[in-house]
């Protein structure tokens, strides 16, 4: 139950973020929901790398001591990259939102539909 409860929290966060990202009209609200989804994924990655045995480690045999950190911390490394990319995405997304707001005085995603039809 120790692993599963973290994974369930991650799934709940992802579902809440999915609902927000698909149902909101305000572009900044969509971005905030995306951040909630990122956090759910990060929590899942860290929890799995904390509690489960990597397949490479159980097959590596006894000399795996040198490589244990590589197998066990990969989830944390992935999370670092996800956080970095999320930061870049937010900076760019907010810049785009501000540019759209300047050009058409609206931040609703339904108003930025020039490529529709």
């Amino acid at each position: 139950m120790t692993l599963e409860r973290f994974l369930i929290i991650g799934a709940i966060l992802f579902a809440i973020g999915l609902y927000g990202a698909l149902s909101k009209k305000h572009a900044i609200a969509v971005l905030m929901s995306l951040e909630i989804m990122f956090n759910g994924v990060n929590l899942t990655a860290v929890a799995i790398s904390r509690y489960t045995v990597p397949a490479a480690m159980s097959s590596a045999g006894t000399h795996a001591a040198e490589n244990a950190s590589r197998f066990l911390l990969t989830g944390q490394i992935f999370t670092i990259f996800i956080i970095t990319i999320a930061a870049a995405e937010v900076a760019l997304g907010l810049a785009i939102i501000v540019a759209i707001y300047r050009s058409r005085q609206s931040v609703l995603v339904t108003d930025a539909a020039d490529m529709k039809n």
Partner: protein
Amino acid sequence: MNLGGGTEGALITEIVFWVMALSTVVSAIAVVQIRDLFRSALFLIVTFLGVAGMFILLRAEFLAGVQLMIYVGAISVLIIFAILMTRDLDEGSPSHGFRIPIALISLIFMALSIYAVSATDWNLLGSESLTDSQIAETKVVFSNAIPSIAKLLLRDFVLAFEMVSVLLLAAVLGALSLVRGR
């Protein structure tokens, strides 16, 4: 289950976990439900703090620090700035007409993932599949993780590390040229 920490199963850890889980989930729901965008940004900060606390419970202290600095310190400030710069929308953050089906889809997705999580037979650390030396090594890794993370970042994942730095530079330049106007 007793690896690395020695605090697992303690009552105080349980209480801390449930308080943090509850505050994270409730504030995440508040983010998508509150109509005032500024308040939902504040609740987003509470969500980030809760996830940072769970990182500490998962013995990823470095990630908790990164989460505090980048999410709580930088991203939420950026979001609040953007909200203040684009704030003359009186109706707050409206939803469009597909709320109910989207909520249903999200609920079905959540139920499916929870079912998948609880139906999977996880190969947990601390089970019999590892030798004693491997379990000891696991404890060492998690009690002293930051040097290992540094070695991994600059040795095994160095290509991804450099590419992410180039990506950040490109994103910052793009953001600057977008908001600077003409």
